[in-house]
């Protein structure tokens, strides 16, 4: 029949007044019920350990963006007896009120009620429950909540029942707690379970009161009438109006964040369940994972500053030393002969083209020696998909480079691995194993473009699928090699495609942990002729990179792509989530063929890093510092 569902995790509060709402749930097989104190219950919702919790309404407002179950709540219409201010003098005359801080809802209610009744606010002093009661005397009163309150009825000369006072002022019931959860946490059928449980609980009120009293050796009658008469468990129009009034007054008095009363069943469309940009950004800045929907919303609506400041906060949390790294390496394009003919590429030449080349050992050796002379630590080796170069050619080349120059080998993007595998009728794993044995250290993350096949088919028909790209990276990571990850946007991709791309990288990273860093750039369209540019501009680049920093919570580093964006924007990118300035480039044929020709040396890179307020250090491919940051 219905698909098997995972259990619904419900958190209840262990206080007496809550029991009628959840006792019935304990018997329902679909529900996994845990009990705790209000703070613990709120934490479970906040940290996604529970789907629905019976939450004090002030705690619900603090978490924000929660939905409520209709029909059931803990409230009172008139005196409740368990939330009192007591004193030896008329409450209107007390100078100080000691607050039992264990219930924020009652504290906020106390302050609102006092403000309604008096022109001059008393002084509030926070104290533990027992101390608050003990300190009553003279011009000091105390806010007393729960069992202690029920126990002191009639013992103080003056007492103010706060639910009653609220009702007198507003003519509305007061709601203390309701079932709350994240938008979409439960469906319609589940809501009915809470309704059924309430009906069952109301029938059992006397039994609940009796059991409670017996456990404590007390008379049951006050508890029976407390549950029967003082408390109300319905959550209808009047209660909703009362709750809305409370939230409005509390927000106006700056006691709680501005909060709307919303229900699970009023969220049929996605738009109703979307948290605000501010909420998302502060969650992301605190390290919470953003959903794809969150990412799209931020890309649509997050301003340059919103995204930049949040990404900067994440960068600071992940890299608290204010150090920005860069690497001295050289990008060598060993061949420009390529069979893919990507529409965005101005570099490749088809097989047999007079301008096609494969670098000779002499040419490569010269370049390598220059890297060594310049204090470089690695070579980045990438090229076209040249059908005339067998696996053996790469293995020989790698062994020779390792033997002669001892440079790190950051070589061959997934596309090239797949190409070699096809050429040799081997699996990509076998190719990677053999190349690794020949000296390959890590993989560049190029060729990812946008990991959405609709986009890939349009811009690079002959290239591997998203799964192909991710598969090579997965295998490489499993073999112990690290790689970077990239994104090239600004062709036919939509904001959703870009977010999907980030989520796919994040999922693989959860699995392997093999990505060291992420770089993004927009399609460089100047001479790359055969495709129209899509969404573009420096403004978007900085926002897009910032979003990546926020979404990719499991990738350590984000690099500024100054080679494509220019060193000025590369510098600004350091304030939008990046903690790495990429490489000192000796040459970079692919991008420069597309009209972008930036070239700066280590000194200029360090000047820009320092100009942005950071210390600079050189790194290796694993982002280990090679120099003292300065």
């Amino acid at each position, binding site marked *: 029949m219905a698909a098997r569902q995972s259990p619904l995790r419900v958190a209840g509060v262990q206080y007496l007044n809550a029991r009628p709402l959840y006792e019935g749930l304990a018997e329902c097989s679909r529900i996994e019920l845990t009990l705790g104190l209000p703070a613990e219950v709120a934490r479970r919702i906040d940290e996604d350990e529970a789907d629905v919790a019976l939450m004090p309404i002030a705690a619900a407002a603090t978490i924000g963006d929660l939905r409520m179950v209709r029909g059931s709540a803990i409230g009172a219409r008139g005196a409740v007896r368990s939330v009192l201010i007591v004193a030896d003098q008329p409450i209107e005359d007390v100078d100080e009120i000691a607050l039992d801080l264990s219930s924020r809802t009652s504290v906020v209610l106390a302050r609102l009620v006092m403000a309604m009744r008096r022109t001059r606010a008393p002084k509030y002093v926070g104290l533990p429950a027992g101390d608050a009661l003990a300190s009553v005397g003279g011009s000091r009163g105390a806010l007393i909540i729960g069992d202690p309150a029920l126990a002191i009825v009639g013992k103080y000369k003056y007492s103010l029942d706060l639910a009653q006072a609220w009702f007198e002022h507003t003519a509305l019931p007061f709601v203390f707690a309701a079932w709350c959860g994240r938008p979409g946490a439960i469906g319609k059928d589940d809501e009915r379970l809470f309704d059924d449980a309430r009906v069952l609980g109301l029938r059992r009120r006397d039994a609940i009161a009796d059991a409670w009293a017996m456990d404590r050796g007390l008379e049951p009658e006050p508890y029976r009438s407390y549950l029967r008469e003082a408390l109300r468990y319905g959550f209808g129009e009047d209660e909703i109006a009362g709750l809305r009034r409370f939230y409005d007054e509390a927000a106006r008095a700056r006691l709680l964040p501005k909060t709307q009363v919303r229900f699970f069943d009023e969220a049929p*469309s996605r*738009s*109703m369940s979307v948290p605000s940009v501010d909420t998302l950004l502060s969650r992301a800045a605190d390290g919470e994972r953003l959903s794809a929907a969150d990412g799209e919303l931020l890309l*649509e609506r997050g301003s340059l500053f919103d995204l930049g400041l949040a990404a900067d906060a994440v960068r600071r949390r992940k890299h608290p030393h204010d150090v920005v790294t860069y690497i001295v390496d050289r990008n060598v394009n060993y061949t420009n002969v390529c069979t893919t003919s990507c529409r965005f590429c101005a570099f490749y030449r088809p097989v047999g083209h007079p301008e096609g080349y494969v670098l000779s050992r002499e040419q490569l050796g010269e370049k390598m020696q220059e890297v060594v002379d310049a204090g470089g630590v690695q070579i980045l080796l990438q090229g076209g998909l040249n059908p005339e170069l067998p696996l053996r050619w790469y293995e020989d080349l790698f062994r020779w480079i390792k033997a002669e120059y001892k440079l790190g080998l950051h070589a061959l993007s997934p596309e090239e691995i797949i190409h070699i595998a096809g050429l040799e009728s081997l699996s990509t794993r076998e190719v990677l194993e053999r190349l690794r044995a020949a000296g390959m250290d890590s993989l560049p993350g190029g060729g990812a473009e946008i990991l959405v096949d609709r986009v890939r088919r349009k811009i690079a028909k002959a290239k591997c699928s998203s799964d192909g790209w991710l598969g090579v990276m997965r295998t490489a990571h499993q073999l112990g090699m690290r790689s970077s990850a990239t994104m090239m946007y600004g062709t036919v991709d939509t904001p959703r495609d870009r977010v999907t791309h980030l989520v796919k990288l994040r999922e693989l990273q959860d699995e392997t942990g093999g990505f060291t860093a992420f770089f993004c750039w927009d399609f460089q369209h100047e001479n790359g002729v055969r495709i129209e540019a899509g969404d573009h*501009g*420096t403004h978007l680049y*900085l926002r897009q990179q910032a979003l990546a920093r926020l979404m990719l919570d499991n990738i350590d580093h984000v690099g500024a792509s100054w080679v494509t964006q220019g060193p000025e924007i590369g510098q*600004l990118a350091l304030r939008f989530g990046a903690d790495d300035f990429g490489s000192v480039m000796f040459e970079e044929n692919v991008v420069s063929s597309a009209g972008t020709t930036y070239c700066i040396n280590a000194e200029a890179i360090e000047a820009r890093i320092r100009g942005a307020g950071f210390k600079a250090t050189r790194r290796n491919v694993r982002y280990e510092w090679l120099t003292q940051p300065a």
Partner: protein
Amino acid sequence: MADLLETVEAKLRAGERLSFDDGVALFRHKDLLAIGRLANFVRERLHGDRTYFNKNMRIEVTNVCVASCLFCSFAKLEEDMPGAHTMTLQEAWRELEQRMDDPPSEVHVVNGLHPGLPFSYYEELLKGFKRIKPDVHLKCFTAVEVHFFAQHYGMTYAQVLTQLQQAGLGSLPGGGAEIFHPEVRSRISHDKATADEYLAVHRTAHAMGMMTNMTMLYGHIETFEHRVDHILRVRTQQDESRAMGANAGKVQAFIPLAFHPDGNGMKNLPAPTAVDDLRTIAVSRLLLDNVEHIKSYWVSSGPDVAQIALSFGADDVDGTIVHETIYKAAGSNRPEGMSEAALIRLIREAGRTPVERDTLYGVVREHPAALLPEGALKVKDRNANRHLQVVS
């Protein structure tokens, strides 16, 4: 540090003026985005999303110059030196004639201080432009040139400006301000108009009802204190000019200009970086509460940084320009001109509304969001619904 931002924000909200110390502390503050956000608050309070550009052209009729500014890669000292060039009037006029199929609304002329031309050359130059296009706005001659004319031809500032105005001059550009403070000015441009003389020319122009711009050349040997001193001198002059009454002119726009080091007497210095460019725009916006516009001159910072500057306090990117030679001489590898479409795109990509203006900030044409691609429209609709649902 946080205290500074709070203090500044409180002052901004209360409409209070920032102090010299506030300005220096803002320049020193590490958190570029926090400063930018404050400047953006002021910018949006003044202009919302509106971002101005114009269709203009620049003509430099002579690069012969008696001054020897250290930062200048453009001027050649004497007429017969290699590379020295002075246009004939016909050559200068032809520059505008060639543009008449898509005419600029403004001609912007800035020159070297040529010792050998008669004053009538400049008058004829302006008259000729007006003959070609009677409604063109002539924004010509920096205060430094006006000061030079007064000295060289034995006239007062008022006489120079009145005669040029009769020949068609509309307003003064802001060049030549460099850094006002004598500690810097005496070292980088000792033999041209002083700060007081520069300001006096502007004051005279304002008194005649003429609008002007002012600039600041930053990123060479000056300190943050010198920059703030400079900006506050602009503010003080503007207070004075605004007190002259409704018919007086004023400073329309303040334009920070980044120093470019190639081919001049300070070629060993690094050029200011993008962070410095944005910070300077932002602090200028925050300090100049009496100047309406802050211009991020795209030729100075490059189009990419200029685009970001539109979120850091700038509300103007200058114009299409077409032919710029001064920054080019100092090693700028940027395009010499931008098409109107490219400027509109640059502004739109920053999430702003492009407004084509004339020189005096009269609106020529607004360019509200064009028809967006289909996907983008859907996104917009979704936002509209969401907003409605929240409101109702």
